[in-house]
């Protein structure tokens, strides 16, 4: 592009033909674009392609990479943690959706009705979102401590038996879901709140004139009117929660007995603990294919509805 531009630019200057101007405009435009093109090419586009390539190769950074077909996939599928990782990720996603999808929507509906303390409530619900996730997670690690943690102290106060939280296979995963919901629900709540405020008031008035009670108004006006944003948020949240990593990494290390190992965590372990980067890539590719399905639906939904 740059080599071609020099004669073209000269031609343009001497006699500003239509072609000369167009070439010059394009050269300028790509001049402005080059920084972004380099960043995207190296750190987004190339890794996307390489993700696929590395999954089918064996590399050790000394010998040239060798094509090994499906061997990496065989390695991960035969890992005893492979099944639990997918089950946990799916379970985490479902539980995180049950808490992290329903609660913010209900909260937003309630907040939308309140006439007082709105700024305070909006501020407070978003506060955890602003904390660095590592801070929230380590804070909850302290709260979860079975001996002196806040949660067991509170249970104690009501004369209830304390829980083992992160240390027991039955409560570890739900403990992660609680942290994740606590630190993420603020953004969902505020997004729903913004969506609720765009609902035309005539619709509620009309529904009321037709004799619809409060819950029927919510069911027949609020939900249909926010259907699009609800769907978009559902898809975004599935994609986000299926990539869960920091909670198992910091809180449980995948334990106890693989009860909290997630797909991304296993991928990290393959690359950095087991020294098998290619197997990690193969696992990543599987996750990518699953998530791309949701992403494609999301793209479809948002495109159909914004134009």
């Amino acid at each position, binding site marked *: 592009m740059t080599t071609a531009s020099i004669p073209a630019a000269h031609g343009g200057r001497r006699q500003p033909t239509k072609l000369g101007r167009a070439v010059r*405009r*394009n050269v*300028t435009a*790509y*001049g402005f*674009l080059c*920084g*972004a093109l380099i*960043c*995207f090419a*190296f*750190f987004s*586009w190339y*890794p*996307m392609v390489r*993700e696929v390539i*590395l999954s089918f190769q064996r590399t050790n950074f000394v010998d040239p990479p060798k094509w090994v077909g499906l061997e990496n996939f065989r390695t991960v599928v035969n890992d005893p943690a492979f099944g639990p990782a997918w089950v946990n990720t799916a379970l985490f996603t479902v539980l995180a959706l049950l808490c992290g999808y329903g609660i913010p929507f209900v909260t937003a509906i*309630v*907040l*939308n*009705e*309140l*006439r007082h303390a709105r700024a305070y*409530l909006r501020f*407070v619900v*978003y*506060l*955890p979102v602003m*904390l*660095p996730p*590592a*801070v929230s997670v380590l*804070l909850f*690690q302290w709260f979860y401590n079975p*001996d*002196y943690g*806040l949660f067991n*102290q509170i249970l104690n106060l009501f004369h209830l038996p304390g829980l083992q939280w992160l240390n027991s296979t039955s409560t570890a995963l739900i403990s992660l879901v609680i942290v994740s919901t*606590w630190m993420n629900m603020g*953004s969902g709540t505020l997004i729903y709140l913004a969506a609720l405020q765009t*609902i035309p*008031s005539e619709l*509620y008035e009309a529904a009321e004139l037709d004799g619809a009670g*409060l819950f029927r108004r*919510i069911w027949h006006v609020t939900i249909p009117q926010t259907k*699009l944003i609800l769907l*978009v948020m559902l898809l*975004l949240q599935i994609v986000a929660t*299926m990539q869960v*990593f*920091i909670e198992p990494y*910091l809180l449980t290390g995948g334990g106890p007995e693989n009860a909290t190992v997630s797909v991304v965590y296993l*991928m990290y372990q393959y*690359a950095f603990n087991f020294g098998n*980067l290619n197997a990690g890539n193969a696992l*990543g590719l599987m996750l*990518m294919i699953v998530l791309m399905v949701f992403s494609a639906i*999301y*793209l479809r939904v*948002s495109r159909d509805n914004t134009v």
Partner: protein
Amino acid sequence: MSNVTVMPDRSAEVPSAPVGRERRGQRRPRKTFHTQFRTAVSPHQLNTTRGRIVYWIVLVTVVVSFTAAFVFPLYWMVTGAMKSTEELNAIPPTFLPSHFSLEGYLQAWELLDLGRLLGNTALYAGGAWLLTLAVDVSAAYALSKLRPIFGKVVLGLMLSTLMIPPMVIMLPAYLTVRDVPIFGWNLLNTPWAIWLPAAANGFNVFLLKRFFDSIPRELLEAAEIDGASPGRILWSVVIPISRPILGVVSILTVVNVWRDFVWPLLVLPDSDKMSVSIGIASLSSQMPQNVLVASLVIASIPTIVVFFLFQRHIMAGLTAGSLKG
């Protein structure tokens, strides 16, 4: 409660109950009309005595439960850092620390070298901010106003990165940083490992381009007729009127880099180069509880301050992202 607040208003009128209710009925909608739209709950119902009682019960419940859920943990964190280890382990716990001391905070600052960790993080966030603005603003300007050939393709490719979950390409991106193709640089443990990938942000390009699209052509053409070059137009015309969106993009970039965990964990393994989240997490198991908690408080102060100052921008960025689809 509601009667008390409404009573004085009524004083000039005939102080009989039905009239009072009617007046309340007038007062409510007038107030809500100014503040916001009508919502699912009918204003008429809200203004009945029963409606008001229910309203106040709901309000108090929501305020109390929100405070308990979101503010109390933070209170517990701030005060926990002031307690000694014995006090932290005490059953039942003390609601207030037995004596006010900043010892935990000072210890955390020293032990973890928090000054350096925070300085590193500020360097990463600041550099990412400058580079992101420079790269993404000029890209969005080129795509929106100069409209080169294949511009649509380039934009499509940039937006397609939004569809790729970042965790999934984490490993190949890590390899790229370790050995940048063509150049052969190793960016591990350098700020560039944070800065360059941060600039490759399709969402920023999208937000900026959409804003630039809304700038009227005539404005730019006027500048062009005056002989301004595209660079000059960007600097003197486009950027000054794009302040709001630049604010949103800036805050999003800085906050994202500050909060990020996985990427700095991979590319900044050297303990001298760690960001604050990673530094604390890597040492968390070796510290007394009160010191750890104090370090958590210190690490969250910058983002909370940013939130206090730029609340409106942050919330604007949040909804800008979601409502666009």
